């Protein structure tokens, strides 16, 4: 195995890996500051922040020959015997000089800059900058201009790392951004009349190491240090991007992509990024409603589960519809409960919202046309419980004739998903229980209308288009009056204590072959459930390795 | 006593003059004591404020008029507040004992005054006196074992405190009660020893006789038995639980001590009783050691003719002395820090008790010597001359205390040389 030496420490790397100095140093626990380099983009080595000393150790004699000049670590490949020195006086001086140069033309307006608190320039200045300023610079005001519907450019805050330009060229493939002018007058800009309008545009804000690019949706809303990040999974489409939900006091302020090389790498689409607004929509159902003789009244959660249970058992037959927005844990609890109430209960996969087809970008990122996060997971749970997975259209086709017993529709859809004519068909059921985020023609005629949880309030796992299961905890608490599906079904199944996703996952892994790769600790980037199909015996061991990696 | 009870019984239709006299005395005394306690509280608060560079309560005057009267309405306002507070009894207390404790302590504190003279005699008042006899300014005149009664009743106060602490069912109250009982019992001994000297020298336990004795010789017992005086004053401070002996209720350690769980009127009873203890102690100090109503050249001897001017002067002198002693009590409160409990006990058992015994022995021995040379106890030379050995005793006793260093204790954690060395080695 090749050995690289970073600050005297030997790091073993895989011979197949192509790593640069920054990556190798990170494995040695050394952080080399950088602006322009990003693991998901090409290397330009323009910011000069990652300058280090490098050399080669002669494998025979053990003699080390250093290169006399400093080189950018991002551009220096690590191979057997490569030596990096990251903490020498020359390196420190180089970093201090770069910081000083960047700050010469930077408006020191951190108090009103939204990036303050997560700004590389700020952090590196404290870590690597000079203790005192040598130039007498007055703080000034940054020029700003709009780059498109989503992004504002603060021209003078820019450090010209060109990450955003490369992103538009390499990942989005739309090439809207460019560098205008030359030398000290360089600026990021768009060509007049061609705004930044691709569907991945929000990523340039995350990429920007300083406060030059501001997300119009988030700008001025909240300071970053007030927010807490919660690892979550996007519910926008079946890609299931790993995301961070940034919230403060149960209010979401933004979603950001979380690195997951197996799913979304470092990116997410704007549709998902701004797709959290429905969570705080004032039109959300927030109280359980009971309808008697056409009049709706607010029910009380303390007595409601027992009442529902009694009505369902008395209904003589149960059809349960599970939406693809439920987590697999919720689907399992619901399906098991349905079978406990009625041993022949029909469990049906709810309507799957479809878009206009997959959108693939030149960098490989794909927005799926299946606009729900967990069709596969819910379908597999239903298949495991009932043996076959009937879908929504089957129900609509068959319901007018066989409408007997109770119908429970677990919805949780972000937008309109059912029209009046479909709802009219389902009215035939004597007992109709609808659980949804927003009022719909169906909820208008339900005997019980229960508020559902949004994706950020759920705890559980989603299975994406590629059979990858990712687990997450809740990011915000549901509004008062809302009980998450998981808690409701847990309570209805008469289980002990509070809902615990781990317990349900253990059941899934034990009872269903499809989920057998699932282990207690799901790693942050999820588990590939296809592993079990390749080698069912080795599945557990591989999942463990995944956890370590 | 025998004759007066016969007279009381002889009253047929109307109240006998003696009974009427006793009732008047009781009413005046209780009224006077309660008022005095209330205004002494105000005085104490004003004193505290002055000593701490503040103004103190100076607002409450006549209601609705805006007239402030230097805050003289404050005691009334305080009383009204206490009385109209919710009579709250915590659920966890022993109800009957909880109610009984403040009553017991107040009754005991009041009854003591039955034998304490507030002056000498006043001339007969028609309708109150029996056959033109001068009226004695004590509720029970001629009660020979007055001092014994005082002691017996002041011991009852311990029951009040202990019951209050026990019945409250609260650890702070209980600790306060325990401390209080230990303290009161410990200081009862030096108190008694100091009084024994006075009893020996005056030949009576009747407080009127004690005053008469001092007035006759003109030599107050503070001059004749200075060591006894010092022991008595310190023990009296401790008995009335005043700073620096207020451990039963020290706020920093025990919240409120034995009355933590009390509020409203029940708390008021406790507070009044505590103040009455201080007043009792002041009376005893004045009567036993500071000559009672006697003052040289003003009040005359015990056998002088009883006139109104003379009588009122004597009352004024006695109450004036008491007032000054109470002032001293109050000044003390803001001058010295509180003792630690081990110091308190050491002071009682290791210092006050030996000094009290020494005083008692010296006084007894000197009395014997005097009886040898001056059997009639009339010679002024012996009277004044024998004071000198007592002063010598005071100085010697005091020096002995100082050199023995009994109170100088260090209860901080002690460093062990071995421990610190091994610790250092362990890490080197």
């Amino acid at each position, binding site marked *: 195995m090749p050995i690289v030496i970073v600050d005297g420490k030997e790091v073993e790397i895989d011979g197949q890996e192509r790593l640069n100095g920054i990556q190798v140093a990170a494995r040695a626990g050394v952080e080399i500051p950088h602006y322009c380099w990003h693991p998901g983009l090409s290397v330009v080595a323009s910011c000069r922040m990652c300058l280090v000393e490098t050399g080669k150790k002669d494998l025979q004699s053990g003699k080390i020959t250093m290169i006399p000049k400093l080189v950018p670590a991002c551009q220096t490949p690590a191979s057997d015997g490569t030596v990096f020195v990251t903490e020498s006086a020359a390196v420190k001086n180089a970093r201090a000089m770069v910081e000083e140069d960047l700050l010469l033309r930077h408006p020191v307006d951190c108090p009103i800059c939204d990036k303050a608190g997560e700004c590389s320039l700020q952090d590196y200045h404290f870590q690597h900058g000079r203790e005192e300023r040598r130039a007498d610079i007055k703080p000034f005001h940054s020029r700003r201009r709009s780059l498109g519907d989503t992004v504002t450019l603060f021209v003078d805050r820019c450090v010209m790392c060109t990450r955003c330009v490369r992103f538009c060229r390499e990942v989005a493939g739309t090439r809207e951004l460019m560098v205008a002018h030359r030398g000290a007058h360089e600026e990021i800009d768009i060509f007049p009349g061609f705004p930044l309008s691709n569907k991945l545009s929000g990523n340039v804000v995350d990429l920007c190491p300083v406060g030059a690019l501001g997300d119009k949706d988030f700008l001025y809303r909240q300071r970053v240090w007030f927010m807490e990040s919660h690892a979550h999974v996007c519910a926008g489409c079946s890609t299931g991007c790993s995301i961070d939900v940034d919230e403060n006091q149960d209010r979401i302020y933004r979603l950001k992509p979380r690195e997951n090389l197996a799913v979304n790498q470092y990116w997410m689409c704007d549709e998902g990024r701004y797709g959290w607004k429905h969570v705080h929509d004032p039109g959300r159902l927030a109280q359980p409603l009971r309808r008697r003789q056409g009049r709706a009244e607010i029910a009380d959660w303390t007595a409601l589960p027992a009442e529902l249970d009694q009505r369902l058992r008395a209904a003589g037959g149960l059809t349960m519809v599970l939406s693809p927005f439920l987590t697999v844990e919720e689907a399992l609890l619901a399906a098991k409960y349905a079978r406990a109430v009625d041993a022949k209960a029909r469990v049906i996969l709810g309507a799957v919202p479809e878009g206009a087809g997959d959108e693939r970008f030149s960098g490989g990122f794909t927005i799926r046309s299946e606009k729900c996060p967990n069709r596969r997971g819910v379908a597999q749970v239903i298949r495991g419980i009932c043996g076959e997975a009937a879908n929504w259209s089957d129900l609509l086709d068959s319901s007018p004739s066989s409408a007997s017993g109770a119908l429970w529709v677990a919805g949780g859809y972000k937008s309109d998903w059912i029209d009046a004519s479909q709802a009219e068909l389902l009215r035939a059921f004597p007992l109709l229980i609808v659980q949804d985020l927003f009022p719909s023609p169906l909820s208008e005629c339900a005997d019980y209308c229960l508020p559902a949880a949004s994706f950020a309030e759920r705890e559980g796992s989603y299975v994406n288009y590629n059979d990858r299961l990712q687990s997450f905890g809740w990011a915000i608490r549901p509004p008062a009056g809302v009980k998450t599906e998981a808690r409701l079904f847990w309570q209805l199944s008469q289980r002990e204590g509070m809902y615990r996703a781990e317990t349900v996952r253990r059941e899934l892994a034990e009872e269903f072959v499809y989920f057998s790769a699932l282990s207690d600790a799901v790693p942050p980037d999820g588990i590939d459930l296809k592993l079990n199909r390749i080698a069912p015996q080795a599945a557990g061991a591989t999942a463990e390795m995944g956890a370590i990696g | 006593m025998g004759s007066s009870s016969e007279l009381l019984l002889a009253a047929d239709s109307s109240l006998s003059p003696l009974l009427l006299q006793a009732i008047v005395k009781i009413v005046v005394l209780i009224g006077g004591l309660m008022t005095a306690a209330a205004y002494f509280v105000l005085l104490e608060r004003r004193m505290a404020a002055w000593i701490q560079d503040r103004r103190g309560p100076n607002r409450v005057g006549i209601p609705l008029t805006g007239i402030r009267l230097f805050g003289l309405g404050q005691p009334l306002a305080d009383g009204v507040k206490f009385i109209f507070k919710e009579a709250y009894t915590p659920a966890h207390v022993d109800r009957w004992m909880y109610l009984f404790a403040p009553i017991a302590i107040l009754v005991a504190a009041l009854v003591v005054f039955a034998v304490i003279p507030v002056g000498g005699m006043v001339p007969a008042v028609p309708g109150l006196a029996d056959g033109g006899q001068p009226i004695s300014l004590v509720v029970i005149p001629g009660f020979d074992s007055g001092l014994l009664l005082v002691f017996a009743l002041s011991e009852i106060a311990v029951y009040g405190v202990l019951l209050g602490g026990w019945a409250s069912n609260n650890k702070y109250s209980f600790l306060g009660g325990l401390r209080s009982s230990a303290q009161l019992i410990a200081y009862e001994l030096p108190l008694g020893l100091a009084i024994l000297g006075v009893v020996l020298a005056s030949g009576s336990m009747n407080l009127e006789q004690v005053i008469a004795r001092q007035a006759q010789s003109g030599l107050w017992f503070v001059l004749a038995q200075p060591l006894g005086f010092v022991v008595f004053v310190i023990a009296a401070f401790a008995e009335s639980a005043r700073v620096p002996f207020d451990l039963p209720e020290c706020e920093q350690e025990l919240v409120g001590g034995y009355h933590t769980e009390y509020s409203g009127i029940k708390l008021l009873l406790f507070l009044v009783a505590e103040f009455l203890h201080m007043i009792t102690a002041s009376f005893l100090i004045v009567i036993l050691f500071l000559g009672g109503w006697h003052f040289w050249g003003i009040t005359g001897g015990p056998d002088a003719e009883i006139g109104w001017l003379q009588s009122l002067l004597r009352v004024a002198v006695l109450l004036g002395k008491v007032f000054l002693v109470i002032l001293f009590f109050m000044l003390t409160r803001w001058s010295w820090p509180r003792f630690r409990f081990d110091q308190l006990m050491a002071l009682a058992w290791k210092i006050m008790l030996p000094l009290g015994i020494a005083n008692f022995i010296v006084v007894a021995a000197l009395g014997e010597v005097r009886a040898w040379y001056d059997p009639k106890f009339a010679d002024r030379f012996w009277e004044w001359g024998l004071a000198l050995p007592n002063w010598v005793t005071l100085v010697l006793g005091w020096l002995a205390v*100082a050199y023995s260093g009994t109170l100088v204790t260090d209860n901080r954690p002690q460093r062990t040389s071995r*421990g610190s060395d091994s610790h250092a080695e362990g890490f080197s």
Partner: protein
Amino acid sequence: MRPDDPKIRWVDEPKLGITGRMYLPMFAQGLTTTFKHLKRSLAGDVLTVSYPDQEPRIDAPLIYRGVHRLNRDEQGRVKCVACFLCATACPAHCIDIVGVESPWPDREKYPQSFTIDELRCIYCGMCEEACPVDAIELTSLYNLTGRSREEMIFDKEKLLSVFDATKDTEPMRSAPTEGTNA
């Protein structure tokens, strides 16, 4: 911490001399101090201020910490740039700001609403320490009262009106910054 911890520095208690152990000098010392203060107070030299009759004298209004005010800039606009640093510094969490893009060309961000709960505030002055533009200041108004909780929640207009009322008696603590808005 154990008694033999090497980090403990042991200080020996000074030994009492014979005068000290006789207690009399201490006795006299205590009583002297008491009398000194008693004499001073009886002569009328007390520290208490009889408040409603007599207004307290605040010698240095610039260091007194009373009601907040929001300063105005030279053009009469609120000086605050909605940076949230005061809300960040506030230990009582009594400041609530909603920042939006400013309507003025020379300013980027300004507070659409700026609310201080004066009842929740502990008057520590951390907000004015934190403010990068000296927009929030504590005045020397000490007699702040109200009849309801709602009344004591000061909004931007009220805080600006406090500035208007106090700007003559208490000038802004910093010189106007030339063209610096951040």
